[in-house]
């Protein structure tokens, strides 16, 4: 109640003021009458009565403070006063606001990413109930699942209100102008309802459409609807021809629908997964790029669901040991599954950018301290006139916060621009990137960061300045004694140096990691290699017809003048898709279950593949044109395969049983290992063995699948992209429906595989550079200031015979002391903190001595260079001028 009264009071100040005047006036007059009655002259009585009140202004202020919330009024006063002071020092204000804008802007930008990606819930109904499900042979293993297993999970679990499956594909779309290859996603009927996604037109799939043999139905994206049907409701019931099959459009998916997960691609067409008649897809032993998501029943906890699924996995392993023995089910909360990998990176970047803001604050605190020298007198007078210390501190803090808010305002501009720029250069490595925006929470963060920054850099100078020794300051004419202030400034510089060193060490380690990664041999020569996917007209026919076209493609591509070698490639592609097959060596007992077999990555290629990729041949021979569909089945293995399963024996001539291909293959050669899973991750991947088959020896039953998913790799004479046109023409001449898509250079693929690391390196590097510049500006400022202050002393020293280089050494020595202390503290801090980076590093230890020594040397050098400028100025002091100057 009282608070409200006082709050109201704050806004009816004038009325309260009048009433208070009346009240006091009454009192004074009564006293006066009293004095007059005791025989005093009226004039004297009035004076005496007024004197009783002492300082009337102060009394009124104190009384009024009881009726109002004092700081609301004084805040307004302070704000106006602060704005005037800042406007009077445009140079200082500009530098400070710009520094702060950079610091707060960078923080806000990173926070908006953290907010959009990590903090905001996933954009679905009750997102906490969503869980990703994987098949895995070990605890926590996130492997893809087979469709029959998914169906059993969905039927027999007790924890989920629904489970949904999805896998990516692509279709040849005909009947909509030019035939084109469109990305597609197969989803179970439960998928969209489970996420709570409502179609903007029509309906989603019905359960009975999600079965083999039902009438083909398709959902289209909003974009596709707009482009091809002008957003007309008449699109419902129209048909699309996908891979030669006619699908009826039953609904339109809303434009804002997003789902980030492995094996999900945002597509123009969605078809029911259960209709896919690929025989291997309905084979429990084969997992085909399919992932599963589930929604927990209300009240069921994640742990209960894990236990339930564990029991179910055991049951299925017992029922289908050949496919499922040893196979568990791994549950991961969907949000962690989507953003878990990027989380440490983002948090480290947020911490790093926080350091930058801290350094900016320390710098401004130093500027304020240096400036406060000139204000000591002003504040001393205020204090002498009765301002309390708290009041002065409040006024100075108001100024600081005003400054910080101005910086924050510009910072938001920098942040929104910076976030957009960052998201543009950032490829798919950042999930949920489209959800990153400046929302209320981000703005709140900005305001909080500004106020905090203002207090941070304003408090120390305010406390220092608000405690002047009145007598001395006023007597000295405002110059004041500034020993303590210098100590504070020096401490600030040391802190800045230490923080900058930590950031430099982090950035240095990232740069070294990336350099190491670039020098890793991927196992093949990626220069001048073009990789693409080919889509085949569905009417291509029986396996032999496919093989005939493949041979034709190879011949045509070889005939292009700029093409040195070309090979089709089904199955795995370096750093692209991977296909794994189980095997066992001839002469060993056949393992009774699939999970117990050995697994190898398999590439189905043509003879020139080795020439295209320049993979070294270690032993024997590679696949030749003689390895045709009806000739003996041959396999070429890599050196990891040879080492793992034949150790020192010669593997040539040994035979490998491959159940899934119904064949036994003879090993004819050994080639070098390819870093399939990326330069950084390959060595830690569980599957290391690799093998090559002739693309023509793919068994007939796999031909339809292989034909739909075949890639091509081409080595060119010059820039690969220059040949794209010629390659496309050659394909066109074979068959007008042959489409080349996802065309990339192999160099580009490798570069993309490092995008996330490169992105964090660039950001950390930028932050470290900012920190380096700011801390050096800081030390420059303090040393200049010190040197200026000591001009008089330097003059005396020189008059007494000090040499110029003594002066230089003295001033530089001050700077060196602070720098070295800062570097030493920074090294200790970095030693503790870079450990957090360990997961992002490659090939260097988190305490890499070379990096630490390097950045320490760099920082010391740059800082001393910054000190050299004022030191040289001090050295040039003319003793006569310096002595007269005072």
């Amino acid at each position: 109640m009282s608070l409200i009264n006082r709050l109201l009071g704050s806004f009816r100040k004038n009325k309260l003021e009048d009433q208070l005047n009346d009240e006091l006036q009454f009192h004074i007059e009564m006293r006066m009458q009293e004095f007059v009655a005791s025989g005093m002259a009226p004039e004297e009585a009035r004076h005496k009565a007024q004197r009783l009140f002492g300082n009337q202004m102060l009394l009124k202020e104190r009384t009024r403070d009881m009726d109002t919330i004092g700081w609301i009024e004084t805040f307004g006063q302070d704000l106006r006063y602060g704005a005037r002071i800042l406007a009077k020092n445009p140079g200082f204000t500009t530098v400070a606001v710009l520094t702060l804008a950079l610091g707060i802007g960078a923080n806000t930008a990173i926070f908006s990413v953290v907010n959009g990606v990590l903090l905001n819930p996933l954009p679905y109904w009750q997102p906490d109930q969503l869980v990703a499900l994987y098949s895995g042979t070990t605890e926590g293993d996130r492997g893809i699942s087979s469709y029959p297993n998914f169906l059993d999970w969905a039927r027999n679990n007790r924890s989920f209100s629904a489970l949904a499956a999805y896998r990516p594909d692509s279709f040849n779309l005909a009947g909509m102008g030019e035939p084109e290859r469109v990305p597609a996603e197969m989803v179970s009927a439960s998928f969209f309802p489970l996420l709570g996604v409502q179609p903007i037109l029509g309906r989603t799939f019905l359960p009975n459409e999600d079965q083999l043999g039902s009438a083909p139905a398709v959902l289209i994206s909003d974009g596709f609807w707009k482009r091809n049907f002008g957003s007309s409701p008449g699109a419902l019931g129209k048909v699309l021809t996908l891979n030669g099959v006619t699908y009826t459009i039953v609904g339109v998916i809303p434009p804002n629908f997003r789902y980030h997960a492995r094996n999900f691609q945002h597509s123009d067409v969605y078809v029911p997964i259960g209709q896919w008649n690929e025989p291997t897809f309905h084979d429990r032993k084969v997992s085909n790029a399919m992932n599963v998501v589930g929604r927990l029943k209300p009240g069921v906890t994640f742990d209960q669901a894990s236990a339930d699924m564990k029991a179910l996995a055991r049951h299925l392993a017992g029922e289908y040991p050949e496919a499922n023995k040893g196979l568990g089910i791994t549950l991961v909360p969907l949000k962690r599954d989507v953003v878990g990998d990027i989380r440490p990176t983002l948090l480290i970047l947020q911490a790093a950018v926080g350091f930058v803001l801290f350094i900016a604050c320390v710098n401004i605190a130093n500027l304020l301290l240096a400036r406060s020298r000139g204000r000591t007198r002003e504040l001393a007078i205020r204090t002498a006139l009765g301002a309390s210390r708290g009041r002065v501190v409040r006024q100075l803090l108001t100024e600081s916060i005003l400054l910080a808010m101005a910086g924050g305002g510009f910072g938001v501009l920098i942040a929104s621009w910076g976030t957009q720029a960052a998201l543009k250069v950032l490829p798919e490595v950042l999930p949920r990137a489209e959800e990153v925006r400046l929302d209320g929470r981000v703005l709140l963060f900005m305001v909080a960061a500004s106020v905090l920054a203002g207090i941070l850099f304003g408090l120390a100078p305010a406390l220092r300045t608000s405690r002047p020794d009145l007598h001395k300051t006023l007597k000295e004419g405002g110059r004041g004694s500034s020993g303590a202030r210098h100590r504070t400034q020096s401490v600030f510089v040391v802190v800045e140096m230490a923080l900058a060193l930590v950031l430099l060490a982090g950035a240095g380690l990232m740069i070294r990691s990336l350099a190491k990664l670039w020098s890793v041999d991927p196992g093949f020569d990626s220069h001048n290699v073009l990789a693409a996917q080919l889509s085949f007209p569905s009417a291509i026919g029986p396996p032999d017809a496919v093989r005939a076209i493949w041979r034709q493609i190879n011949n045509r591509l070889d005939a292009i003048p700029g093409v040195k070698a070309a090979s089709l490639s089904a199955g795995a592609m370096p750093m692209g898709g991977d296909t794994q097959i189980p095997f066992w060596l001839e002469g060993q007992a056949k393992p009774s279950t699939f999970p117990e077999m050995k697994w190898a990555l398999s590439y189905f290629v043509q003879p020139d593949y080795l020439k295209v990729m320049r993979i070294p041949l270690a032993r024997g021979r590679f696949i030749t044109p003689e390895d045709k569909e009806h000739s003996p089945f041959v396999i070429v293995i890599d050196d990891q395969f040879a080492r793992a399963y034949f150790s020192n024996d010669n593997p040539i001539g040994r035979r490998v049983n491959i159940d899934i291909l119904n064949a036994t293959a003879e090993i004819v050669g050994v080639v070098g290992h390819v870093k399939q899973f990326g330069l950084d991750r390959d060595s830690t991947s569980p599957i290391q063995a690799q093998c090559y088959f002739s693309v023509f020896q793919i068994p007939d039953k796999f031909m339809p699948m292989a034909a739909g998913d075949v890639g091509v790799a081409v080595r060119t004479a010059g820039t690969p992209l220059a040949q794209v046109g010629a390659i496309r023409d050659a394909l066109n001449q074979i068959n007008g429906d042959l489409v080349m898509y996802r065309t990339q250079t192999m160099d580009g693929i490798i570069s993309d595989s490092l995008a996330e690391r490169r992105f964090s390196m660039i950001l950390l590097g930028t932050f470290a550079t900012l920190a380096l510049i700011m801390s050096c500006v800081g030390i420059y400022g303090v040393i200049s200031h010190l040197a200026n202050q000591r001009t008089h002393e330097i003059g005396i020293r020189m008059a007494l015979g000090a040499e110029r280089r003594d002066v230089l050494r003295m001033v530089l020595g001050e700077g060196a002391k602070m720098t070295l202390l800062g570097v030493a503290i920074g090294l200790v801090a970095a030693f503790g903190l870079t450990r957090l980076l360990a997961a992002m590093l490659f090939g260097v230890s988190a305490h890499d001595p070379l990096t630490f020594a390097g950045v320490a040397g760099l920082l010391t050098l740059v800082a001393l260079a910054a000190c050299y400028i004022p030191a040289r100025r001090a050295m040039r002091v003319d003793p006569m001028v310096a002595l007269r100057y005072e």
Partner: protein
Amino acid sequence: MSKANPDVLQGTLDLLILKTLARGPQHGYGIACHIQQVSDEVLRVEEGSLYPALHRIEQAGWIGSEWGTSENNRRAKYYRLTAVGRKQLAKEEENWNQLTRAVAKVLRFA
């Protein structure tokens, strides 16, 4: 009253004001005079402390105020005790008595 120890004296001043107002509504000047007279001129309320205290106690809700006419026909602000204030007075009186009894005991036995 001197300014020497505002913490102790502020509480005491509140008690004196509340007690004075328990006799009926009064203006600031009247309160000061009453305290001075009743204490045989021992306690003098400084104007510099009285008005901030009155406004503070009013905001606390222990006293209310309205403008009225004084004995000599002038406009004056009259303060009066509220129900809350009456309870507060009882509490403060009890505190005070406890305190003085305690101090007296110490003085007797020290």
